[in-house]
């Protein structure tokens, strides 16, 4: 156990190997939305174009992720810790809220989708009056709550156990797919596809420090990162063949699966969806727990915070899940996480050049950049402003412009420079 400089309690489980780090990340990702991204790219590109898009996207991601890990490994910092360094205390409070909101949204979305899929794929002969969707939802919620209780220790064991099962189920499903996708488009590398790959993965990237702080060494972290990128690249390319059974709303087309008559396909998808949703939810709860530590009263923080979060999320899900769409919350929180990742990368490179951590003024400028970019993305999401341009591009532009404005333009004025020095 290592005492983390920035948390009130000792950090457990700090000897994770590259394989364990890889398993935790990949079991948390290999969920339907990630797979569906590949299919969406394929709809606008040729097969080779989609492969190239995924390849380039993942290559860019590797660099970004390497930077994120490099900025946090020395002090074993979580996402919230580095947010505090780069966005200040006020900014970190907002990020804590964001992490919790994201955890909430993804927990609901994942469990709802998985419950719906499993209800259709698993046929249990019961009284027709019994609501099987409710039963499945409660079952998944209870399983996730049980497995959340021990935090990173149980998550590591769960991921290490589940990852090979997920891979096997994935390949069995591929093998028994009813029809192969026909590739008719001729477009090569597309920026919109690239934007989709980055947009889907950057949100997860900003969360990586929370998990990689448990790494045994920086070498294990780098090795894990390389393996993660290679495997996710392979999964991304192979997922192109899933087009016949995954629709645009990131759900499995159960009718197609059941019509295929293949029990192997059905069973492999059941196993895949079940392990995927459980691992993703447990990882999500752990990710959200760092935000909980800031927001919650001290009596509710500590070892039981994972149990409280898991149980709380399950309770909320059972009561209100599937009652209304949370797609807006999902998209907004994703955009906010992507913006956070961009801001942190910028901040890190600027800090590297200046050879010191951000000053209070710089923290304020990063926070305002993040807030502004997120606000514009929110307006885009609710169609208050035209959304022809990708939220990722908009966010990136606003962050670059805002940071540039604060750091370069304002610093040119002597009076303001004096004021900044006074504040520091």
């Amino acid at each position, binding site marked *: 156990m290592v005492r983390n400089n920035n948390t009130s309690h000792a950090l457990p489980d700090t000897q994770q190997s590259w394989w364990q780090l890889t398993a935790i990340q990949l079991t948390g990702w290999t969920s339907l939305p990630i797979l569906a991204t590949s299919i969406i790219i394929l709809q606008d590109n040729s097969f080779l174009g989609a492969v190239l898009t995924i390849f380039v996207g993942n290559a860019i991601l590797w660099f970004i992720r390497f930077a994120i890990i490099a900025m946090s490994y020395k002090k074993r910092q979580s996402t919230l810790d580095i947010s505090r360094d780069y966005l200040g205390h006020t900014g970190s409070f907002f990020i804590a809220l964001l992490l919790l909101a994201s955890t909430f949204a993804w927990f609901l979305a994942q469990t709802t989708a998985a419950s719906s899929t499993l209800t259709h794929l698993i046929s249990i002969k019961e009284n027709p*009056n*019994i*609501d099987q*969707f*409710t*039963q499945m*939802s*409660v*079952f998944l*919620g*209870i399983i996730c*709550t*049980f497995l959340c*209780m021990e935090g990173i220790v149980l998550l590591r064991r769960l991921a290490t156990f589940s990852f090979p099962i997920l891979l096997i189920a994935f390949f069995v499903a591929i093998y028994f797919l009813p029809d192969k996708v026909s590739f008719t488009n001729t477009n090569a590398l597309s920026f919109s596809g690239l934007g989709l790959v980055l947009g889907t993965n950057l949100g997860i990237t900003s969360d990586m420090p929370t998990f990689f702080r448990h790494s045994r060494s920086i070498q294990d972290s780098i090795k894990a990162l390389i393996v993660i990128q290679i495997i996710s690249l392979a999964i991304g390319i192979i997922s192109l063949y899933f087009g016949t059974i995954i629709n645009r709303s990131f759900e499995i087309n159960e009718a197609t699966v059941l019509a295929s008559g293949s029990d192997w396909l059905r069973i492999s998808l059941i196993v895949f969806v079940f392990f995927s949703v459980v691992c993703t939810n447990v990882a999500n709860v752990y990710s959200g727990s760092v935000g909980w530590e800031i927001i919650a009263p001290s009596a509710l923080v500590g070892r*039981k915070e994972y*149990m*409280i979060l898991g*149980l*709380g999320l*399950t*309770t909320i899900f*059972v*009561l209100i899940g599937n009652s209304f769409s949370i797609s807006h919350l999902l998209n907004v929180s994703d955009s906010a996480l992507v913006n956070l990742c961009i801001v942190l990368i910028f901040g890190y490179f600027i800090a590297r050049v200046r050879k010191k951590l951000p000053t209070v003024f710089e923290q304020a400028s990063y926070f305002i950049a993040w807030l502004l970019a997120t606000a514009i993305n929110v307006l885009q999401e609710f169609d208050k402003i035209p959304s022809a341009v990708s939220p990722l591009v908009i966010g990136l532009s606003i962050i670059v412009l805002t940071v540039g404005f604060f750091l370069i333009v304002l610093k040119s004025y002597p009076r303001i420079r004096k004021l900044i020095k006074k504040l520091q």
Partner: protein
Amino acid sequence: MVRSSRALQSHDQNFWQLGSIQSVGLGLPGIFYIENLAKQYGAGTTVLSIIIGNLILWLIGMVVISMVSQNRINAIENIKSYIGKFGGLIAALVFMFAFINWYGLQIYSSISDLESIFNISSEHQKSILIRVGAGLGLLTALLATGGIRIIKWIACLSLPILFIYYLSAIVISDYSVAFTGTWGFSFSGILACVVLQLPGMVNLPTFFRHSRSGADSYLALTYFTIFIIFFEIASIWLGFSHFMNISSASLFTHSVVFHLVAVSIFVVLLLICNNLLNIYFASACWESIIPRFGGPKGFAIIGLVGTAIYTFIQISTTMLFLVNLANSYIINLGIVLLIAFLVRIVVRHRPREFEKIINGASWVVGCVTATVFEVQNPEQNVAALLSGVGASALFFLCIIFIEETVWAAKKIMRSIPNVK
């Protein structure tokens, strides 16, 4: 005596707090039970049965508190000291099974009641209610992670609210109950009232180990007995079935809406309070089986399992049969403990090497008898219970008779000089 495996978090509860926790223990199934008794025996006889039955329970409670007055141990540890480690483990399993099923039963009763109150008939609305039930079960599990402190605060806050509701329900209720010509004495009615709360009495040590002092324990016992008597008598007037007429009215006046909101809050609050008690009762059993998962984690796991039972099994005939059987076993155990305690007080003149084996054996005899009767007549729960209790008591009596006779004879033989 063995101290509880987990260090106690608090032992500073006064009589008010101890009593409040136990006072909120009459759940909806208990209210329906009393309503049925009133229909079966008449209101007057039921009132008398409630008073006499609860006085008997008060006496039993006194004995149970006296058993553990020297040490702050939970109910399972108390049981282990009388029937041995293995017997205690079996008892823990039976208790856990019963409490977790009662957890599901409480949710089921509450949701069924809400269904009646709001006149829910469509499948979509029913599925929403099932989700509400599961959600309430999980919420209770979440609250239980706060431990005895949270339970204490919720009970202390809820008791006045419940009391006001019961009082107002009696005052403003248009549900009339006929008392004329119903007064009388009924042994089976008294027994039915004793049986309702006896499992809770056997488990009193689990809560009363947090008592500030012995005086607080005894005063709390009196205080919550009074409240339980009041709540049980008031249950005769609650008449939940008449709410169906209110909710099906075409005109939703302010008073109708107020009634619906008030009764919903009452049902939900009662459910949460009861199930918090069930979780804490079951936690003592859980800790004796798997000490590693004690504390907040154990409370959460019990709540999760109880919610799962409600969601997946609902309340089938088989489940009800098993729950009735578990009730019989627990009540049998309570009687065995009482007799064993009395025997310990009376028989001080000789050692009892086989005390735990005898106590355990008499419990087993009672359980087997109750099982046979229950299987043969599933509807005759009270008869099965009485048979089991009778068999245990008879077995005990025979063993004590034999023990005393053998001991006395041996002692006399030893004292006589060698006889040619």
